[in-house]
């Protein structure tokens, strides 16, 4: 906990390796100072976590502060993510049978194993979330631990640096012999032209530019943290809504999660396909190969708002808010909600017509049209003929006990038990009628119900979405991009030019792109008496090496 006072007079925090002000090596024998060229990461400042290591808290802190740990977390997450792509995730499989069965049915023992391990829902599993959370924690602690000392060090740096500091920079050189003031001024001019910020102290120069790019990584980490916070907020009730709404043409239905405040009417759904004749002829070949390709599908809808107070189930009083067309890529937005075109079902059966027919003579005695969503109990016809609907199965199948039953209320496969009343048969005849089959359970009938046509309607499938976390997530993404660009596309460059007696010492440092820095130094020193410094990390001292 002792702070260290350097020869130059500056007081450094405990654990500092290079003096924040003059760069003199305070603590020798560390990893940083072991090499001939010192490691300039973090300016040799005291990375907090390395210096305080006593309690459990400190140990946890140091663990998450390590870049190595961070990289491992990234790699494990990467590998884990790939596992979820081996077989389709639960949300992408069709819902024809229970989930566990599906994996076994489709993929055998491997599918069963996949399911048992929970991989079918990998990205919501507790361990995957924990990985992401650990990355989040690492982001926070890594950044805090480094940015504070780095900021201090860069702020406190002085123009005049200690000899040992300059000697052990990667780019370093001495010019002996006289260097005229003219040269000196020329260098400063040329530095300024390259947009360096010049600080002088007693004839010594520190030229610096691009310091802001050092903060890039910390900015992008903040962006990621905001992004993760946004994702976490999704779980807060009310922040995120994901519902499906199916509406038949002509229907008006309440929009879920709007507290009964909004209704939607499906006026019309249309699907258009590309036509070889009328559309761009360039598509000809493709259309031949692919067959039918959807050109456009949309739901023309009217959005209503409830007037006054209503109770669920009641006939609400509605006023029109707007009418619009919903397409993929063009959701309908209102308040904080959005309705997306997600799915559709063409030609759902709407009405079915039958003719009461005498089987032997073929004579018909009236037709009935049954609304498959709301059939009548009794259909009266002329002359004492009538048809009673005893049972109705919109989505018919034979049950385990052999009796007819229905799978749902959607008229996918309607079946009827009719009782046909005629003057000949006043007690009625029973006939079971389904698509392509008629069964007469009580013996042969005189009459039958003959199929006489259908009417269909399209149904549109919309997703109702409310997501209040979007702006936070978007903001996080924006900050991340700014940080990444800030850190990647600019470099932090510093050039020290110091007079030492009758020598001129030049040293330089950058956090990345040494190639560019060296080129720049070349240009800046051109026409002056100051010699180009060497790259101490190259065996071959010929500039930036051969280029071919």
């Amino acid at each position, binding site marked *: *906990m002792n702070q260290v006072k350097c020869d130059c007079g500056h007081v450094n925090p405990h654990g500092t390796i290079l003096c924040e002000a003059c760069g003199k090596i305070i603590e020798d024998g560390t990893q940083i100072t072991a090499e001939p060229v010192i490691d300039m990461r973090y300016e040799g400042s005291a990375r*907090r976590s390395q210096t*305080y290591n006593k*309690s459990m*808290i*400190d140990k*946890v*802190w140091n663990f998450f502060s390590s870049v190595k740990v961070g990289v491992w977390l990234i790699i494990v997450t990467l590998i884990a993510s790939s596992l979820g792509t081996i077989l389709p995730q639960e949300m992408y499989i069709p819902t024809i049978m229970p989930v566990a069965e599906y994996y076994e049915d489709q993929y055998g023992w491997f599918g069963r194993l996949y399911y048992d391990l929970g991989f079918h829902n990998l990205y*919501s599993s*507790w361990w995957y*979330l*924990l990985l992401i*959370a650990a990355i*989040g*924690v690492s982001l*926070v*602690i890594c950044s*805090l631990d480094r940015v504070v000392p780095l900021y201090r060090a860069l702020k406190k740096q002085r123009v005049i640096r200690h000899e040992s500091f300059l000697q052990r920079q990667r780019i370093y050189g001495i010019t002996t012999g006289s260097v005229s003031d003219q040269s000196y001024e020329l260098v400063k001019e040329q530095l300024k032209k390259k947009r360096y910020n010049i600080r002088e102290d007693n004839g010594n120069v520190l030229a610096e530019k691009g310091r802001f790019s050092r903060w890039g990584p910390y900015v992008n980490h903040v962006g990621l943290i905001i992004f993760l*916070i946004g994702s*976490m907020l999704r*779980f*807060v*009730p009310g922040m995120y809504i994901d519902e499906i709404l199916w509406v038949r043409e002509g*229907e*008006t*239905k*309440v929009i*879920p999660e709007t507290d*009964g405040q909004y209704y939607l009417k499906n006026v019309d759904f249309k699907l258009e396909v590309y036509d070889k004749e009328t559309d761009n002829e360039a598509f000809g070949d493709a259309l031949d190969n692919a067959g039918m390709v959807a050109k456009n599908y949309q739901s023309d809808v009217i959005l209503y708002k409830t007037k006054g107070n209503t*109770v*669920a*189930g*009641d006939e609400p009083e509605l006023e029109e808010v707007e009418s619009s067309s919903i397409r993929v890529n063009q959701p309908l937005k209102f308040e904080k909600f959005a309705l997306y075109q997600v799915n559709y079902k063409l030609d759902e059966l709407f009405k079915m017509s039958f003719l009461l027919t005498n089987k032997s003579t073929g004579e018909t005695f009236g037709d009935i049209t049954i609304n498959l*969503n*709301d*059939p*009548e*109990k009794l259909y009266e016809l002329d002359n004492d003929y009538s048809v009673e*609907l*005893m*049972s*109705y*199965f*919109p*989505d018919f199948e034979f049950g385990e006990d052999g009796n007819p*039953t*229905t*799978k*749902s*209320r959607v008229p996918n496969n309607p079946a009827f038990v009719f009782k046909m009343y005629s003057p000949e048969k006043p007690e009625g005849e029973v006939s079971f009628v389904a698509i392509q089959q008629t069964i007469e359970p009580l013996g042969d009938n005189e009459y039958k119900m003959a199929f006489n046509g259908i009417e269909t309607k399209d149904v549109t499938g919309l997703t109702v979405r409310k997501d209040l976390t979007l702006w936070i997530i978007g903001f996080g993404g924006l900050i991340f991009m700014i940080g990444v660009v800030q850190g990647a596309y600019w470099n932090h460059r510093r050039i020290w030019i110091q007079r030492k007696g009758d020598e001129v010492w030049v040293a330089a440092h950058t956090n990345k792109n040494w190639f560019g820095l060296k080129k720049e130094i070349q240009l800046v020193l051109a026409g002056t008496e100051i010699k180009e410094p060497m790259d101490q990390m190259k065996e071959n001292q010929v500039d930036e090496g051969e280029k071919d």
Partner: protein
Amino acid sequence: MKKQRLLIRTVILLLLGAAVAYTLYANFTKDEVQKVEVGKKAPDFVLTDLKGEKHQLSDYEGEGVLLNFWATWCKPCEKEMPFLNNQYQAYKDQGVHVIAVNVGESNVAVSDFSKRYDLQFPIVTDKDSQVMTAYGVDPLPITFLIDKQGNVVEIHTGQIVAEADVTEMMEKIKP
């Protein structure tokens, strides 16, 4: 200095830990989140039964209501109907009502079913799914127990397995 550092670090770690714990907890319970929660007021509704009479939930305040959502194709619903029927008869003079909400099937199908099981309690049909949406009903059957103040005291998802369970339910909402 050292203490301050320790304090700051502890606070930060605690905050992070809390956020992680919350996320994990929320992720686990998200599938159980009900639209209508126990302890909250049951959303009011009005629907018409097979006889043509209207039933509004708020009219039943002062008495208990067992609200059951069902469909003819739902086998578990079918199995529990007799239990509900019997207990309804037993408790109807003790101020407990049963309202069975069918999820929008045709009158033909619903009345057929009702006749088959000789159901005595009011059966209403939620034609355009308004009530289902208000109650967030998805898998069937689901039963809401509403007390005399109109609050939901229990939500039972899935089939009611034994008639004794229905008796228990009735007792809970008896005024």
